[in-house]
């Protein structure tokens, strides 16, 4: 019998990647598909830092925006190829993550607020007119030279695949178990021999890398954007709500959350926008009241093991 990890790769990761790799051939709204993939990546990034270690990253978009600008600067000033510039976007987000590691001393709401403030600080730094020569300041960037939505879309599918693979690893390894131990009780985790600080930093930087790569690919796909677009708090809030709605610390929870909630958002948000806020609000209230551990808890409460 194959191990749990290989079953998860075979029955969750492979179909997900296959579906999103094939959908552009049969469905015309490629921007919508691209946004789905971006939110699948971001929701899993939130899953890693919140689900596995307990830090709620209200300023998660800071890494996404830093990745987008990392990409833009490499393309604008050094004319680097898009794929390499995406990798630089990831590196920039990791560097930002390193700079922000002192935030990990905080917990709960204090961490969430400090992280939100940090993402706003990065936005205003990037949008500073004095940095126009580097970031184009508040005037936005235009990257027509690398514009290639098809390649950007498939790059996003690849990053989504790697991100889900990372979560499969966390779900099936002693490393992932140790991260959850740190989330549950840091003192007991240290008495189990776990280096608590190191584990938190690794998870934090991994989630930063994921958002940075997603930001770089987003910049590649849209090509023209302003600081407010790529540092929009909506990215953080949506990614957090999607992950929580499905259920964190699982592989499938964030996927289910994105497909259902982002699906509803696109269905009623555009066709009947007058009801959208109402229905969305009711759904989220219902979740918090009745299923605080997410949709997957409908199954786990019955004793089913949800990957």
């Amino acid at each position: 019998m194959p191990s749990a990890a290989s079953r998860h790769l075979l029955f969750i990761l492979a179909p997900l990647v296959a579906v999103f790799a094939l959908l552009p051939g049969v469905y015309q709204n490629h921007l919508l598909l691209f946004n789905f993939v971006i939110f699948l990546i971001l929701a899993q990034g939130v899953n890693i830092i919140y689900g596995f270690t307990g830090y709620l990253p209200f300023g998660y978009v800071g890494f996404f925006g830093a990745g987008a600008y990392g990409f833009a600067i490499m393309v604008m000033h050094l004319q680097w190829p898009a794929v390499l510039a995406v990798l630089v976007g990831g590196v920039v987000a990791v560097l930002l993550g390193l700079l922000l590691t002192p935030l990990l001393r905080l917990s709960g709401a204090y961490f969430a607020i400090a992280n939100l403030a940090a993402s706003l600080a990065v936005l205003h730094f990037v949008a500073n007119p004095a940095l126009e020569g580097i970031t184009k300041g508040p005037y936005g960037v235009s990257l027509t030279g690398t514009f290639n939505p098809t390649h950007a879309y498939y790059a996003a599918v690849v990053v989504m695949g790697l991100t889900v693979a990372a979560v499969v690893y966390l779900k099936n390894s002693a490393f992932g178990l140790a991260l959850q131990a740190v989330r549950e009780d840091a003192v007991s985790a240290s008495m189990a021999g776990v280096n608590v600080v190191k584990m938190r930093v690794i998870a934090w930087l991994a989630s930063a890398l994921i958002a940075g790569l997603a930001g770089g690919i987003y910049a590649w796909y849209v090509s023209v954007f302003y600081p407010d677009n790529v540092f929009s708090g909506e990215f953080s809030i949506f990614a957090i709500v999607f992950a929580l709605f499905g259920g964190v610390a699982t592989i499938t929870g964030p996927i289910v959350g994105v497909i259902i909630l982002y699906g509803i958002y696109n269905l009623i948000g555009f066709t009947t926008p007058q009801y959208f806020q109402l229905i969305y609000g009711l759904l989220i209230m219902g979740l918090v009241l009745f299923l605080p551990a997410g949709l997957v808890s409908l199954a786990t409460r019955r004793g089913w093991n949800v990957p």
Partner: protein
Amino acid sequence: MSPERTPILKVSNLVKRFGGFHALDGLSFHVTPGEILGLVGPNGSGKTTAINVISGLYAPDGGEVTFDGASAGGAASHRLVHRGINRTFQVPKPFLSLTVRQNIQVALAYGGATGAPSIAELLDDYRLKEVADRPAADLNSAQQKMLDLTRALATRPRLLLLDELAAGLNPAELDWIAGRIKALAATGMAIIVVEHLMGFIEQITDRVIVLNAGKEIFEGTLATAVREPQVIEVFLGGEHAR
């Protein structure tokens, strides 16, 4: 002193302050491999603080902790675990949403021990087999204490600190766990027991240290301690001491 009796832990002049309060005020003692040492004293006398300093949760403000011949004062807890110190908590602190088995797996994977007991042995020995695949949150408090103990034993400690492990156990469970602790000591493990149940202390310890206000006021067997006027005074008040 034969090599067998060389202390594995030496604490000298240990000081720990919280603001102006001296929780430990020049505490010194030692424990040798295979010995079960009792730390007793009234509430607030510094027993748990001593364990917290030895296990690396608090850095000492003065004095020395020497484990296995090398300094251990102020080192990070996970490093002390790798060197062979582990403990249980007065209020057990399992990883609540993880299963019993996963709780032990974390310590086996990260405890850095070679030759640690297997999960099956630990589950069996500490009566957790039936609940192995249940979340730790579902366990009763006695089971959570046993899980806390197995988490510690999975790192194969040479010094084990037990903080009120016996509190809340019924008489049959007390006898059983006393036998278990003695069996661990017989393998050469040094054990420090903090406990309020004097019968239990008498049953398992070779020697006790009585603490009051962060200082040692008596060292010897419990049978002698209970006749010591100074010990009677701190436990029962001055009028009972003759």
